[in-house]
């Protein structure tokens, strides 16, 4: 059996895995990425279908943040078109845009008197500047201490929808953190799809002894005496053991455990993983039409529908995502529960009914041509940020990705942050250059 030796093997080519690999490769580490699928990028990839570019998960990427910084650092092209971070809430059949500066107070004051508005703003101020709310309350329950005004609650429901977790399930502290992090944030959409963006990152890795192998499945993470030794993979039909000093897993903490064997982990680590890591489910529908189904260039949220649906007509910002003469509307919603199993067919049907009720031309002009229900081992987030550290109890075995995101914006920035933390750790512990 031919053996190649790398400093680092990264399992999985999602945003966390490729960021970690690109940074390490750039710093001289002999780095191998193994990806079981034929395409790279994981849930930050895209695929063409019926002439439309569909994302495998990510909807937009933060610009000017950590993701872009890592791309630039490793010399990868970061081709992203600015996406208007504007939110509009449909409340009582009317659309209200969230004004940019001091917007929340102004919006709330449309629905509540001064006393009530001030009470809510004061609670928010305290949560921002003094002490964040408890994680044991949902945003909804936290807000119900201050208001029962349905329209005011609808505004907050709209804001939470943007975070992809249900209003009644999003922990209040996480909501506040995400709201803080979102201040002044800008975002963009890769006009050629996420797969093109991620290919740039992979290209920045590839050099001598720095490789990305697709269609290569990790079978086992090799562990001896609670120290990682490498990875056994299946490549071209045969098994190959790849020794490495460090293994970085981007396939989620649960799968890492399965690959390495739970008997190799410390009990406290296993308990934390079991208790804290809850994948978040989400629905995404791709809808084609000749004319745009909404004219709004930002995100329109239906706050009073069966499900809180957020919609974005991606082709208004990036016509390249749809074939000529066509438009692409993406409709997203959390299912009845963000964390507990639901019936996907029923949940998808409810979102379609909401669209039918709210878009006047839906029945005549819309074609829902693809549905995604992200959950379980392929969720929208593997966990909320801050649940689990990147280090495992097995020496030199790390996780990256959204299962172990530190306190960071949800999604891609959290994946990139986790990669940055792991790379710093590796640099302090191990010098590049395989023995």
């Amino acid at each position: 059996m031919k053996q190649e030796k790398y400093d680092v093997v990264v399992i999985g080519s999602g945003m966390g895995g490729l960021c970690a690999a690109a940074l390490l490769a750039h710093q001289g580490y002999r780095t191998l990425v193994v990806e079981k699928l034929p395409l790279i990028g994981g849930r930050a990839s895209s695929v063409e279908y019926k002439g439309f570019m569909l994302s495998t998960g990510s909807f937009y990427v933060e610009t000017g943040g950590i993701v872009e910084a890592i791309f630039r650092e490793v010399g990868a092209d970061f081709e992203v078109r600015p996406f208007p971070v504007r939110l509009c809430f449909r409340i009582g059949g009317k659309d209200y845009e969230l004004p940019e500066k001091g917007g929340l107070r102004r919006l709330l004051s449309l629905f509540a008197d001064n006393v009530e508005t001030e009470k809510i703003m004061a609670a928010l101020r305290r949560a921002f500047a003094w002490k964040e709310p408890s994680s044991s309350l949902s945003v909804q329950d936290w807000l119900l201490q201050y208001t029962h005004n349905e329209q005011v609650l609808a505004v907050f429901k709209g804001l939470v929808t943007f975070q992809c977790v249900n209003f009644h399930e999003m922990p209040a502290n996480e909501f506040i953190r995400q709201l803080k992090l979102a201040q002044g944030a800008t975002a963009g959409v890769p006009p050629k799809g996420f797969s093109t963006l991620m290919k740039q990152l992979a290209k920045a890795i590839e050099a001598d002894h720095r490789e990305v192998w697709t269609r290569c499945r990790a079978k086992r993470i090799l562990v001896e005496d609670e120290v990682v030794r490498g990875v056994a993979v299946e490549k071209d039909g045969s098994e190959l053991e790849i020794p490495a000093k460090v293994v970085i897993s981007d396939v989620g903490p649960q799968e890492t455990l399965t690959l390495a064997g739970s008997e190799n982990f410390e009990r406290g680590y296993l308990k934390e993983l079991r208790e804290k890591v809850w994948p978040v489910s989400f629905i995404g529908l791709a809808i084609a039409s000749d004319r745009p189904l909404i004219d709004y260039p930002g995100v329109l949220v239906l706050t009073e529908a069966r499900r809180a649906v957020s919609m974005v007509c991606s082709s208004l910002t990036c016509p390249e995502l749809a074939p000529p003469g066509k438009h692409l509307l993406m409709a997203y919603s959390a299912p009845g529960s963000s964390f507990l199993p639901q019936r996907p067919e029923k949940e998808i049907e409810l979102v379609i009914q909401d669209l039918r009720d709210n878009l006047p031309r839906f029945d005549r002009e819309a074609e829902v041509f693809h549905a995604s229900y992200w959950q379980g081992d392929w969720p929208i987030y593997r966990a909320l940020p801050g649940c689990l550290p990147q280090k495992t109890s097995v020496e030199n075995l790390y996780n990256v990705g959204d299962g172990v995101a530190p306190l960071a914006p949800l999604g891609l920035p959290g994946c990139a942050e986790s990669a940055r933390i792991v790379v710093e750790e590796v640099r302090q512990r191990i010098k590049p250059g395989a023995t």
Partner: protein
Amino acid sequence: MLVVNEDKCIGCGQCVPFCPNEALEAWGIAKVKREDCTDCLICVDYCPVDALEILEGGNG
């Protein structure tokens, strides 16, 4: 013969675009349209949760 392992399939729909014959449908759990499926098995590699399986001897 291609089959969907319904215990594993989560309904992400990722397999659908990769079928050259439009033989996969996913409104929730994926379904194989038998009349369109040629058992080319391209889709199998693209399932992120390994829910597309080959049932041996099913085509005989």
